[in-house]
């Protein structure tokens, strides 16, 4: 490789005076992080397809099979009997957010192992802002997946009130933030990619099944009071209920409070975990080099 002279337009590197970062610079950074996540998602078609196929299998096969077995009585927000497919649709939206949040956790561990994470962490913007940007990027992709699923479900005959598709957006956003923040916190605790299987066993499956995603809480209480208590302690329960009520233009205030509170809690813990002076990541021997 030759060593050509530096062109005029990039000359004077060392003479550059840096202006203080303003709102515009922060927005540029946020846009860049979100755009990169979207581009990565678009380039990984298998990831998009699998994210869509998973809930559709539950909707087309599981729900069809169980609609005759599981009866759903009239419980808020429903004002009449609903098909089982309708009942589990908010839970499947939550499932997409849950898997996507954990996927972002997986990708952060992968990026850390591969070194890509360094490019983000050596940015001069505050670490908390970079992590929030990364979360917003992950949530944007998750929400796109949920709406893709809802479109297919609509053609399958599973329809919410038209306004519900708009009203559910803030609920999806907040629930997605909570689950992405949880994923980010977990990624700081996972040392190696191989440990991610534990996340599947200890977070995703218990989180999903110990919630009203597939069956109403009153049915769980009838079956096992202990399991009912576990469900009530599960933040994912409230994410599902928040989404369910939002589909019908209602706000479940308890769910809103729990999801918002958990989002703040998980995010704060993740920011501390990734803080170079206090964090868990710092304590690991992850130099990425041999020097």
């Amino acid at each position, binding site marked *: *490789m*030759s*060593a*050509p*002279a*530096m*062109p005029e*337009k*990039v*000359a*004077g*590197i*060392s*003479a*550059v005076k*840096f202006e203080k*970062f303003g709102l*515009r*610079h*922060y927005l*540029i*950074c946020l*846009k*860049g*992080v979100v*755009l*990169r996540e979207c*581009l*990565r998602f678009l*380039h*990984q078609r298998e990831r998009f397809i699998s994210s869509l196929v998973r809930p559709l299998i539950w909707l087309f096969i599981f729900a069809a099979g169980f609609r005759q077995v599981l009866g759903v009585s009239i419980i808020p927000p429903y004002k009449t009997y609903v098909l089982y497919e309708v009942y589990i649709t908010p839970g499947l939206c939550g499932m997409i957010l849950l898997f996507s949040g954990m996927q972002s956790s997986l990708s952060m561990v992968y990026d850390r192992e*591969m*070194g*890509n994470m*360094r*490019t*983000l*962490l*050596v*940015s*001069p*913007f*505050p670490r908390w802002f*970079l992590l929030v940007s990364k979360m917003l990027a992950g949530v944007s992709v998750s929400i796109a997946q949920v709406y893709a699923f809802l479109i297919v479900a609509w053609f399958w005959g599973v329809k919410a009130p038209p306004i519900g598709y708009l009203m559910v957006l803030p609920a999806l956003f907040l629930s997605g933030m909570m689950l992405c923040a949880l994923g980010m916190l977990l990624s700081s605790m996972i040392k190696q990619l191989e440990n991610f299987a534990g996340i599947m066993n200890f977070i995703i499956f218990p989180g999903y099944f110990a919630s009203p995603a597939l069956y109403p809480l009153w049915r769980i209480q009838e079956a096992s009071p202990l399991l009912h208590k576990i469900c009530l302690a599960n933040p994912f329960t409230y994410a599902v209920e928040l989404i369910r009520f939002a589909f019908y233009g209602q706000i479940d205030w308890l769910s809103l409070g729990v999801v918002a509170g958990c989002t703040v809690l998980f995010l704060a813990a993740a920011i501390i975990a990734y*803080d*170079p*002076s*206090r964090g868990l990541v*710092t*304590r*690991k*021997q992850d*130099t*990425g*080099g*041999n*020097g």
Partner: protein
Amino acid sequence: MQHVRTSGPGDQAAALDVAGVSHSYGSKRALNDVSFSIAPTTFTVLLGLNGAGKTTLFSLISHLYDTRRGSIRIFGHDVSRASGEALRRVGIVFQARTLDLDLSVHQNLSYHASLHGIGAGEARQRIAALLDIVDMPGRQHDKARSLSGGQMRRIEIARALLHRPSLLLLDEATVGLDIQSRAGILATIRKLVETEGIGVLWATHLIDEVEDGDHVVVLRQGGLVAKGKVADVVRTSGAGSIRDAFSRLSRIDAAGNAEISP
């Protein structure tokens, strides 16, 4: 090389000032009371065998880890206390490949530009100019996955220069590359020091990348064993060449094996 201490940020500050830095991973000491500084517009080679602590030092300078003992300043800005100001002035090429293979060259570089608050229009201009400099003109739309190891490294150098840093850190930037690519990359970086006046800290274990006019900092098992101009290090170590000096300082025997215990 004189150890320059600075009292605060300013134009006269050293490009990089490492003062009394130690770092451990649990009970394992990776760096032990390392102090040196780099003047602006100099090419400094950080020499050390594998495990000497070069990458740990890079991680501390780039604030991936916090400096718990000692201090690191970039143009007078403390990396721990004012990491944003310090990191704006430094471009980093990590030892591990850090390009996103699924994205194009332009998308990779644009992402980095946004991480420094550089808008799309300005980034496009800078990317085109920097791809010329790293001898990859018009390769914006190539997928990173399709590039060779040497080409990826050139793109990473372009990326490190995108925000116009005053100090460039390169950690084993030529590892795994063929001789021609190594020489080309080294020549480009040396040219940047001459024409642009940036300071460079070039970490390597390859002694043939050192030239007579360079400054060197030699690490051994986490400790600093020599620093200064090549001629000074050769003289004080009592060796006949920088290669011999490095061998002595690293305690490498005739068969090329490093002595592990001091």
